């Protein structure tokens, strides 16, 4: 668990803090996304976790221990670090890049080799093909995969990721996000993830911390709750006017109770049960239909039907529930 306790950062010679009295907790195995406009201190906050920046006030606890209990370099070797510009070592092969921290921790050679291959497989790069290449020979998306693999190399319980998928085109970014969520489902790291993109925050975060200019925490909650009940004008304008649709995108057709097929005609549009509700709604409106048949992906079996009315009801229920809480 990572715990921010009254953390502030003011740079010397400046009267205004860049991070202002930040307090929140990141639970084990959760992705906490720090999001906000530029100048909100999100990267600064992240960099204080592994002490690339030291706070002016307050402290950060990791599993109950202040992060100042050990030297900065030792601390950093036990926290994964991935950044937008990736920062691969251009003079080292992909294998050597990934092996950076294990080498610092003086792992045995065969253990490092095995780990490098395992990680390359994990991020979807064929070890035989990429192990001995140099970063310049890889595409941007491949480099970001290597950057993430390098951050995971020594299997650190905590990872810091500063826009780790920022330097690629939207399609590649989407795929990298999906792949990373799949990986996270297996490895369950405690992650502080920085982005300026609210959609990425909603997609990646178990919790979202929305920061505003001057490094003030505006709201800290799950994506669902923030979308359902933004606590201020700032948060609601930051998440956008389409927050209802964004919340629908968090729900999948397979998550909800469908209505029985009732021998519904072949004339109805068909939806995959893996779709999210926002896309499902879009399909329904696009097909000018009130109702669609939901089919399972694998066997193309009819699961039930879904109506616009159901989506409306679900959306409304969630909203009222949030307000009452």
């Amino acid at each position, binding site marked *: 668990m990572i715990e921010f306790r009254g953390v502030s950062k003011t740079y010397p010679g400046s009267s205004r803090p860049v991070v202002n009295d930040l307090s929140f907790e990141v639970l084990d195995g959760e992705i906490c996304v720090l999001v906000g406009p530029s100048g909100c201190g999100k990267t600064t906050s992240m960099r204080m976790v592994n002490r690339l920046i030291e706070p002016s006030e307050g402290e950060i606890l990791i599993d109950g221990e202040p992060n100042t209990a050990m030297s900065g370099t030792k601390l950093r070797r036990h926290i994964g670090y991935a950044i937008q510009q990736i*920062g691969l070592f251009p003079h080292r092969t992909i294998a050597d890049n990934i092996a950076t921290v294990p080498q610092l921790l003086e792992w045995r050679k065969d253990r490092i080799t095995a780990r490098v291959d395992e990680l390359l497989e994990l991020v979807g790069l064929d070890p035989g093909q990429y192990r001995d290449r140099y970063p310049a020979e890889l595409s941007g998306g491949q480099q970001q995969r290597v950057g993430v693999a390098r951050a995971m190399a020594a299997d650190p319980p905590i990872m810091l990721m500063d826009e780790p998928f920022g330097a690629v085109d939207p399609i590649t970014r989407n795929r990298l996000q999906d792949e990373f969520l799949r990986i996270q489902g297996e490895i369950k790291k405690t992650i502080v993830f920085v982005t300026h993109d609210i959609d990425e925050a909603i997609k990646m975060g178990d919790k979202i911390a929305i920061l505003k200019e001057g490094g003030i925490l505006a709201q800290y909650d799950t994506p669902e709750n923030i979308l359902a009940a933004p606590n201020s004008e700032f948060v609601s304008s930051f998440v956008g006017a389409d927050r209802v649709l964004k919340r629908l995108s968090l729900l999948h057709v397979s998550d909800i109770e469908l209505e029985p097929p009732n021998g519904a005609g072949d004339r109805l549009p068909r939806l995959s049960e893996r779709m999210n509700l926002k896309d499902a709604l879009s399909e329904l409106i696009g097909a000018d239909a009130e109702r669609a048949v939901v089919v399972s992906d694998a066997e193309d079996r009819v699961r039930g039907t879904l109506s616009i009315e159901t989506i409306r009801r679900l959306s409304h229920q969630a909203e009222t529930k949030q307000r009452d809480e």
Partner: protein
Amino acid sequence: MSSFMGCLIALQNLGPKTFDWNWISSNLTDEIIPAVIGHIYLSFVSVAIALLISLPTGILVSRYRKAYPPVTFITGVLYSIPSLALFALLVTVPGIGLGPRAVIIALVAYSLLVLIRNVVAGMDSVPEETKDAARGMGLTSRQILFRVELPLALPVIVAGARIATVTVIGIATIGAYISGGGLGELIFTGISRNFPTRVIVGAVLATLLAILADLSLLALERYLRPWARARRA
């Protein structure tokens, strides 16, 4: 420059039988080869000492930027002193006097500007995000310097060493004027004895030496950048 002048003088005296091939074979071991070795020694020692000074200076200057202008100023002034004048000045300094020592000091002085500039340029060429990633993964400042910054800066530093070496090999010929030895010796005695063969042999060998040094350092530069080779492939 001096080799070039030597050639000009020799060319003026060219006539039938100007070039004495026999002189080469009879003086190869006791004059020509020692002159070549002496020349290599002068140049190599000078560049080596200059590198020993420039590397730490350049690294420090790249960290403490305020020191860069004064360092460039001082080395720039040294670089702008005419070589003959510098040799003459050094000879008058007590404890230096005539001989290779004065030559080496002058050659070191000439190399500093180019070398320090290239060390700084090399250090500057290391991407900020590469250093940030290194620090974020827990490398110490020393590890970042030796494992990241210097390897990445090295090709630029070697490029500087190339320029310095070629310059030094040229200027070293003038060193013979103050008894520094090397190929300049052949040229100067050739001129004073009006014996063009010596001048031509000295000038040609000095030129060959410069070209050879340039090519081998170019090869080294390439070798130190395997990742750039890979990109081209």
